């Protein structure tokens, strides 16, 4: 049976799509799944860096669709979890180097040999967004608890609905519980209420994420990291488990979270 294709998207840039793709891919591999993550942000590749695999790249996705290598040659195997593979983006080309049909074919070929295919989509709602969401069975819409990011996420969900693409689940990234408590940041129920799609996870702000990304060691590898725990929980939910939403060190936050459903 073919694996599930999950696209990570957002509309707005910088909200944490690549961080999410890297961490969910690794967390699913830690659960023993065969995972292929595809960097669809052609021209601005950085999924390889966040996974610490940049030095191992020989071929990339554009090479593959242009027939310069075989699928297996374009996949970079992870050094820590051998069931995790990366299909890197091309650094020196732009998004027009790939058509919607080509991305579709790559994603479905990958799904033939993996349990999960994760696609890291570029920012925006243009061609790159379209080719990233077209093959998806599920779209994880990443947003931050701030008005502009939520508005862009709404735009993306609207496009997914209008064009009849895959169902969307919401991941709220960079939540700061103390700011929520002081009413300086949108809280989870407000964001969920605005977007009216199912929540799949809430990831707190975690300063170690930046360093982890720079070192190529996603935070899911860190047992003690709260953000890492949140991503591991999302991976288990994707896998179909019921995992309760965790407390982010703030009773009022927990209370609010439980109020939403």
């Amino acid at each position: 049976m073919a694996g599930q294709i999950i696209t990570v998207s957002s509309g707005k840039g910088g909200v944490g799509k690549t961080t999410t793709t890297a961490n969910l891919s690794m967390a699913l591999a830690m659960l023993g799944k065969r995972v292929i993550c595809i960097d669809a942000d052609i021209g601005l590749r950085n999924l390889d860096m966040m996974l610490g695999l940049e030095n191992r790249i020989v071929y990339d996705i554009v090479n593959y669709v242009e027939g310069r290598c075989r699928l297996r040659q374009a996949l970079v195997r992870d050094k820590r979890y051998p069931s995790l593979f990366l299909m890197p983006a091309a650094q020196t080309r732009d998004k027009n180097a790939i058509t919607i049909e080509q991305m579709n074919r790559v994603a479905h070929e990958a799904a033939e040999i993996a349990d999960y295919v994760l696609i890291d989509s570029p920012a925006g709602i243009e061609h790159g967004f379209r080719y990233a969401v077209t093959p998806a069975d599920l779209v994880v819409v990443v947003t931050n608890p701030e008005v502009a990011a939520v508005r862009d996420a709404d735009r993306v969900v609207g496009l997914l609905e209008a064009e009849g693409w895959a169902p969307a689940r919401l991941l709220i990234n960079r939540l700061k519980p103390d700011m929520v408590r002081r009413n300086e940041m949108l809280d989870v129920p407000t964001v969920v209420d605005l977007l009216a799609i199912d929540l799949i996870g809430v990831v707190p702000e975690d300063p170690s994420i930046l360093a982890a990304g720079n070192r190529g060691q996603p935070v899911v590898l860190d047992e003690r990291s709260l953000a890492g725990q949140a991503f591991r929980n999302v991976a288990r939910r994707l896998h179909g488990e019921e995992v309760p939403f965790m407390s982010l060190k703030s009773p009022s936050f927990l209370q609010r979270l439980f109020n939403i459903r």
Partner: protein
Amino acid sequence: MGHIPVTLKGTPQGILLRVQTESWEVALSSLELSLRDAQSFFRGGRVILELGSRPLPEDDFQRLRQLLERYEMELWVILSEREEVKHLARSYGIRTRLPGAQSPHQRADEVASNALLVRRTLRSGQKLHHPGHVVLLGDVNAGAEVVAGGNIVIWGRVRGVLHAGAFGDDAAVVCALDLMPSQLRIAQYISRAPEQRRRVPQPELARVEHGNIVAVPWKKIRE
């Protein structure tokens, strides 16, 4: 021929464009006239072009597309019985069928009368333009827009932009379960969202009184 050369019709999915003349020349100039007249309605809208068995040379296609672009409209779907037309459409990234099974004909009952009933939430970037009344069962999120020639009734909450009486009818009203639009227009009158944030939602009716848009709680209207 006695026909109207082209017809434009609002449907819940987009603006349905039908060409009913032999001459593409006549069709384009007639379309341009309609668009110029009703610009604000169709601006930003997406077009469903229904061609049936009519051929569409690439030149003609390009001229239509450019005309629509000038009026900020997107050629979204081309419905054709001809393989080469479908092929042409697809090569420009244009759909050749409507998402879901609905054809515009099945929805025609909803637009035949003067009011358009739409059952969905309008999300950021989505626009609903209709020359008659609009009844929406759903929310109008921030960044979304409803423009109607007549009244607007929203069974839901409003955070986006509403414009009722867009042809200048200042007797038009707007009703909503929770009315907090970023901008509300009736005919030529404009009001912006009040600054105060948190409040208990209540059904309201907005109308023009002495040159100002005022929102009256539904409870008050009944008194």
